[in-house]
């Protein structure tokens, strides 16, 4: 296949021969992939395929073998939005408090709110969530919560954003808003975004590149190549669906 201009883009993240074994289970096997600058790169795969394990390996939270190499141009910062943020919803932490805890070392309960309010609102404005400043974290809807998490991940400005299942626990409208936000970040700031997702249609709409994994890489290419439902079904191991020639091609490609 000839190299397109997109494939000539500079690589930001290079993963080679990544292996993760936990409790005797080989969760990830010889994973190889590249993430390019300025791309929205999606990782898809069925449940239990190792998507979150891959993300945790990239963020340094999972012991692994192989190499994960970032080729940063500037500050080398990674912005991370976790899949689940488990916390006690009764703890009285507002969105303002939450952002401030990350902005300053000076004890929050001794500092005056008005000194930081402008800065916090500016941070939240990027993800259209400035109006949530005084809301308690435990009272946010799934979509609002995601936007606040994304806002914190953008400070200081990262070179790559890692999003783990950004559409989970978010309703249809919230998911759409979030997607347009990601597209805007990419367009306005040239953000590179690596996201794990399970909603294929959504991902095909916004991603520049898709890597499918099921313990190992089963597909790596442009989202257009996944327009064939049979191919997607094969990637997700849905044997009940007619797989047809697409599945056969995929087998050849991944073997």
């Amino acid at each position, binding site marked *: 296949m000839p190299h397109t201009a997109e494939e000539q883009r500079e690589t930001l993240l290079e993963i080679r021969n990544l292996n993760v074994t936990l409790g005797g289970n080989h969760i990830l096997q010889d994973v190889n992939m590249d993430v390019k600058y300025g791309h929205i790169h999606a990782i898809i795969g069925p449940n239990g395929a190792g998507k979150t394990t891959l993300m945790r390996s990239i963020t340094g939270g999972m012991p692994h073998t192989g190499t994960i190499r970032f080729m940063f141009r500037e500050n080398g910062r990674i912005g991370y939005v976790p899949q689940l943020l488990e916390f*006690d919803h009764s703890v009285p*932490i507002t969105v303002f408090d939450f952002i401030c805890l990350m902005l300053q070392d000076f004890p*929050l309960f001794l500092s005056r709110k008005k000194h930081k309010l402008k800065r916090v609102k500016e941070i939240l404005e990027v993800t259209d969530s400035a109006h949530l400043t005084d809301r308690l974290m435990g*009272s946010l809807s799934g979509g609002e919560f995601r936007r606040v998490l994304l806002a914190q991940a953008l400070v200081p400005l990262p070179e790559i954003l890692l999003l783990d299942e950004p559409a989970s626990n978010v309703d249809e409208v919230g998911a759409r808003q979030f997607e347009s936000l990601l597209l805007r970040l990419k367009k306005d700031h040239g953000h590179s975004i690596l996201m794990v997702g399970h909603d294929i249609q959504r991902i095909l709409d916004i991603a520049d590149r898709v890597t499918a994994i099921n313990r190992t890489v089963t597909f790596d290419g442009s989202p257009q190549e996944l327009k064939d439902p049979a191919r997607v079904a094969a990637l997700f191991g849905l044997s009940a669906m007619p797989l047809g020639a697409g599945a056969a091609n995929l087998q050849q490609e991944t073997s």
Partner: protein
Amino acid sequence: MEFIYNIISGWASAGYLPEIFQHTFMIRGMLAALIAGPMLGALGTVVITKKLSFFTQTIGNAAMSGVAIGLLFGEPVDGTYAGLYGFCLIVALVMTFVKNRSRLPNDTIIGVVLAQVLGIGIVLMTIVTSQFNIHQVEAILFGSLITLNDQDLLALAAASTGAGIIFLLFFNRVMLGSFNPVLAKARGLRPVLLEYVFVTLMTVVVVSSLKLIGALLVLVLIVVPAAGAQNIVNNLRQFVWVSILFATISTAAGLFLAGFLPVPTGAVIVLVSSFLFYGSLLLKPFITKRSVTQA
């Protein structure tokens, strides 16, 4: 210390303070209450956020063994500091280590250790109480205004000053790590290390407050003021300040009342803090701006 006691008892004699503050033990107790209250109230906000309430109880229970160990190793009956601080710190740090290394839920680990320190405590107490005055042990269990001495007050002041400074330096990071460790780690913090720091602080302050409040009751003073504050506050800043206020009122008013009643100080402090908790619960609908579970 005598200088301070003389000044304060002078105020009491002149009618500026209630008459009961002419007694040195009351002044000493009130000073201890005014140091321990704010510190326990502030730490309580993190304890609640980290869900460490029963962790605190385990440290209280470990104190029984700590006193017994101190006595067995020849420490004076009114100053078993090495045994107390040493054993309680070991228990706290081992529990944190097991919590971070094991997949067991937090409450299971605490249950296991709580039972173990109780077992050790009962065995050692049985040995110790055949040789020593049982009232010294009672003072640790329930808090005692009478047996609180200058050494205890100085130990509390030193522990609270040290813990207070470290608490201020690390508050934001500890709170973020408590709120969600995964996110804290992704932002370059070390939540496990921060947890060790916090647990050490908490243990030192709790152990220093034991003579005033009592090992069996100290849990209440670290949890109830923060829980009461949680009923009526709208943000983290208010959470910390109201918790400090409730804890200080509880210790000071509890101690004042205990001066008139022939009952352990800790018990009265607990009753005052419980009163504040239920009062805040009743006031909740009138004070909080919004529902936490709006979504």
